[in-house]
Structure formats: structure tokens, C-alpha cells
């Protein structure tokens, strides 16, 4: 069971994760990234590269499924304007045992952060908007998966 989705509407994360619990596995892990009120941010706008986005996410999921023999995987990412408090990204993994589910979940969000073509712009209450800078720490985390 694989679900990869890019959407400009708020999504129900709990509903998206529910099917992962019925695949006969003993372990489901999830990660939800949420738009934060980081110094007066009211919304985060997500630009993406439509021709590449889904293929990029699917390639990451294929990698994870092959590496950890997952029973299921859900990957949903918002684009467009996301209000503070709403989910930007959801990663869900199902496997027979916990190590696979937990590691695959961390792998997917770490790799997504440095490889999937999304760009965040923070909108503030005073009308200003600034692009989010990429973090070196994100590149380091993603590189660890490639080295390991």
C-alpha cells in the first residue's frame, strides 16, 4: 500500500495513516511537519516544481520500501499557502517490526528535506514575506543515510 500525494488543500493526517494499521504489520511510525509561528509567521507558502515533485517523492518512497521491506508507506505534502498550525507534510510507514518502520520514517523526512523540490516562504503579520534558508544540518542528516 503506497500513497504519494501533493495537495493544495489541508489534509486529514489521521485518516491518511489509518490504513497503515491494517496491513498485518506490527509497527506503524509517522512524522508530521507543522507550520510554526516562528517569530510572527502567519502562513507558509510552498512553491514546488510540479513536473518533478511527485516523481521525486515516489523515488524516495521506492528507495525506502526497497531498503526496509515496508508493508505500506504514505507521503503527503502541501503546496500553496499553509496556515500556521496546519500540517505541511505527513510521512507514515508500516512494517513487521519497529526498527524498519521508525528508520524508514526518519529516512523519508530527512531525504525529502534536501531532495524534494519544495521551497518555503514565510508570510508575516506585517505583510513581509521571506524565503526560508536551507539548513546545513539538514544536508548532514540526509548525507548520513546515503553513507549508511
Amino acid at each position, binding site marked *: 500500500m503506497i500513497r504519494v500525494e501533493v495537495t493544495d488543500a489541508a489534509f486529514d493526517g489521521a485518516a491518511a495513516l489509518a490504513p497503515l494499521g491494517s496491513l498485518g504489520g506490527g509497527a506503524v511510525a509517522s512524522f508530521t511537519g507543522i507550520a510554526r509561528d516562528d517569530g510572527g509567521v502567519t502562513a507558509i507558502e510552498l512553491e514546488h516544481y510540479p513536473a518533478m515533485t511527485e516523481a521525486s517523492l515516489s523515488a524516495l518512497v521506492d528507495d525506502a520500501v526497497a531498503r526496509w521491506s515496508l508493508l505500506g508507506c504514505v507521503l503527503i505534502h502541501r503546496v500553496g499557502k499553509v496556515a500556521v498550525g496546519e500540517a505541511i507534510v505527513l510521512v507514515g510507514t508500516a512494517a513487521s517490526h519497529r526498527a524498519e518502520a521508525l528508520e524508514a520514517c526518519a529516512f523519508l523526512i530527512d531525504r525529502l528535506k534536501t531532495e524534494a523540490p519544495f521551497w518555503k516562504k514565510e508570510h508575516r503579520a506585517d505583510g513581509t514575506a521571506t524565503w526560508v534558508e*536551507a539548513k546545513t544540518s539538514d544536508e548532514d542528516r540526509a548525507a548520513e543515510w546515503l553513507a549508511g
Partner: protein
Amino acid sequence: MLLVYFARVREAIGVDGEDRVLPANVLTVADCLDWLADENANYAAAFANRDKLRFALDQQMVWEGTALEGAHELAIFPPVTGG
């Protein structure tokens, strides 16, 4: 070659994409950046800090030295910040 730009790069250049015929001596991603930067100040500004640029050729991540041969679409953008 279809050139597409995203985020800060798109804003600096002022368009989100353009279809261009590349000169014969533009063989790699880096050649293409040099050629455009020579053309006008917007490109030069957008490409000033090469460390802060990432590239996809026909929707596959590549690096500055990658050859453009046969590709249809070159995307130029800042490091991604999704998730």
C-alpha cells in the same frame, strides 16, 4: 532548451521559465549559467552565489558540471526547503 526557475531564483530573474536556443559552446549546466549571467544583470544577480544554486535536468537532480546533451528542461533553483 526549456529553462525553469523557482523561488528566489525565479524572483531575481523575473520570469518562471523561458524557451531558449543555447549557443553551441554551452555544454554544461555551468556553461549555461555563465552564458545567461553575461547576458544581463538579473541573471548575474540570480546566479551570483553558485553554492546556493541547485539544478535538475529533465527533473533529475544534477550538478554544475553535468552535460546538457539531449536534455529538454533545465531547472535552476535554491537549495530546497520543503518538509
